[in-house]
């Protein structure tokens, strides 16, 4: 299988401010958010990054999207390095996170055209894609409403659609169903499966076990910025259900870490 996304031994450290040092009662000036993490996502698969809050999932995804640079190591996105050619990487991926917001003053229609232009999609292709995606997510009837007036679920759908205006082969979603009602969450989940069916490579970060079980082909479990386990979903859940397996790994690693 073709390696579309290759994370190679990446490390990311953040500076801890004097204020944070006081709050966290630590003298450490830096915090390692991601520690020599490696994994590969292959063409046409859904790779799930599973881990608790603060484990380093979002930092990893941000590095994959070339929003931040790794201190060490590299990430190759369809052959382009996030360190050497971040612009190329950003052209090849679709990235969606709850931290990325849309200008509420504009309409979904305008925003779709605007982001299509930024991604260099020609007008005819953009119009065709807009019709397809707006139809799939029932956005058409809200297309001329300002984003500010849309419901949370509809905003999330618009964000998702806009993140893939350029029909990227690699799609990175951070907590894709977080905060969504069950109906919208199902629409998003079905869409991810549909994308996989069309040969797209998808990396999702989540802490929802059911989502991983439903859509992921392979899973990486991140704890304290390190890869605690990485295998196919089938192998990971061979002996125990995913949730139990996760807590076994967590107890094993946490025991080792926190007793220090």
């Amino acid at each position: 299988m073709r390696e579309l996304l290759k994370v190679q031994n990446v490390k990311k450290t953040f500076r801890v401010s004097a204020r944070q040092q006081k709050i966290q009662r630590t003298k450490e000036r830096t915090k390692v958010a991601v520690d020599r993490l490696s994994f590969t996502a292959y063409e046409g698969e859904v790779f799930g990054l599973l881990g608790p809050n603060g484990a380093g999932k979002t930092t990893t995804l941000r590095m994959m999207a070339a929003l931040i640079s790794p201190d060490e190591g590299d990430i190759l996105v369809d052959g382009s390095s996030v360190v050497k050619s971040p612009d190329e990487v950003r052209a090849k991926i679709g990235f969606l996170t709850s931290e990325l917001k849309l200008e509420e003053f504009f309409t979904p229609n305008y925003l779709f055209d605007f982001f299509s232009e930024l991604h260099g999609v020609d007008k005819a292709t953009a119009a065709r894609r807009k019709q397809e995606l707006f139809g799939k997510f029932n956005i058409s009837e809200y297309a001329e409403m300002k984003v500010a007036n849309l419901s949370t679920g509809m905003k999330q759908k618009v964000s998702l659609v806009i993140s893939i205006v350029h029909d990227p082969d690699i799609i990175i979603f951070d907590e894709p169903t977080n905060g969504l009602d069950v109906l919208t969450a199902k629409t998003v989940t079905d869409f991810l499966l549909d994308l996989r069916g069309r040969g797209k490579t998808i990396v999702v970060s989540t802490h929802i076990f059911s989502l991983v079980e439903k859509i992921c082909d392979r899973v990486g479990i991140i704890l304290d910025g390190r890869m605690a386990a990485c295998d196919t979903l089938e192998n990971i859940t061979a002996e125990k259900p995913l949730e139990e397996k996760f807590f076994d790994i967590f107890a094993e690693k946490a025991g080792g870490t926190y007793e220090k």
Partner: protein
Amino acid sequence: MKNNMVTVIKKEFRRFFTDRRMVLTTLVMPGLMIYIVYSVMGTGLASQFGQEEGTALQVSVENLPQGIAAASKGTPLEFTELSGGQETDGALEGLREGAEGCDLVAVFPKDFEKLAAAYDKADGGDAPAVRLYYNSVQTDSSSAYDMMEEILDAYETSLANKFDVNPGDEKYDLATEEDMSAQFFSMMVPMLMMVFLFSGCMAVVPESIAGEKERGTIATLLVTPMKRSHLALGKIISLSVIAVLSGLSSFLGTMLSLPKLMGGVQYMDASVYGIQEYLLMLAVVISTVLLIVTLVSIVSAFAKNVKEATGWVTPIMIVSMLFGVMSMLDIASQTGMAWFLIPLYNSAQCMGGIFSLDVDVWNVAVTAVSNICYAGIGVFALTKMFGSEKVMFSK
């Protein structure tokens, strides 16, 4: 209920006083800046309206009486005798033109002291007349006029009001209406323009950069393959256009309402300015707005939110206003080209020069080019900042 009120008050105080930036921008900066601005203004005004020590005021005088010469001893007035006729006409022309070496022309009748002593109001004749010609647009000329009038007042009192100063309807103030309009606009408009241009920038820039950062919408742009330099330039150009339009709106409103505000002063006529002045003004305004937008953009990119950006930009706004105020003062006006490399100061000085119809085109060129260069450096810095995770994703 009362306890809850105290709890809320305590929370608000805690929020404010534990935020060092807020304390600095809200409590320290305003007092400090006002102190600096007023001190500079006070020093400037004292120099503007007070007579600089050692500087002589040149009075060209026809038939200078001994008593006036004696009464003027110890004052900065220096007299040059005129023989009358063409010589006096030449001095008046020099005064009208604002030439150096002639701040006041005083014309006394021949044998003034004898005439004044012999004058009796009861006889019904005209009192001996002293004519003082001056140019109100020139600071030294106004000072010389005031000083001479004071000396004549004292002298007249000692003679029991036996002569008149500037009798009849003759025009003794030799400043032209064009000069008076230019002086008025050059005093008022540069400071107002600096305020308007800055306000125009403040209305849109922090919202567009710090606001987008605060709302998370700029990250959505940063995740696209767009070059950071294109984002920086796109923002700066669009914001500059909006800020110029906003500044022009304020400028038009001011120019149209100033005569009404000043109670229908006769000599204010903006038609004294020609196409050259307006083109020079446009060059200064556009380059200044580019510079201000770039400065405010950089501060806004550093700030975590709009409120913080506004707080940090305030000192720059005050400095810009200060330069505007300085353009009203002769003491702060420099003509050396190097002075026009100082950002914001150069803009205010050029505006003052353009409106007083006394501008060096080369200085305007240096101002416009240097401002554009500074803006270019700023765009480069902003591009780097848009690429910096520490700046763009700091919480």
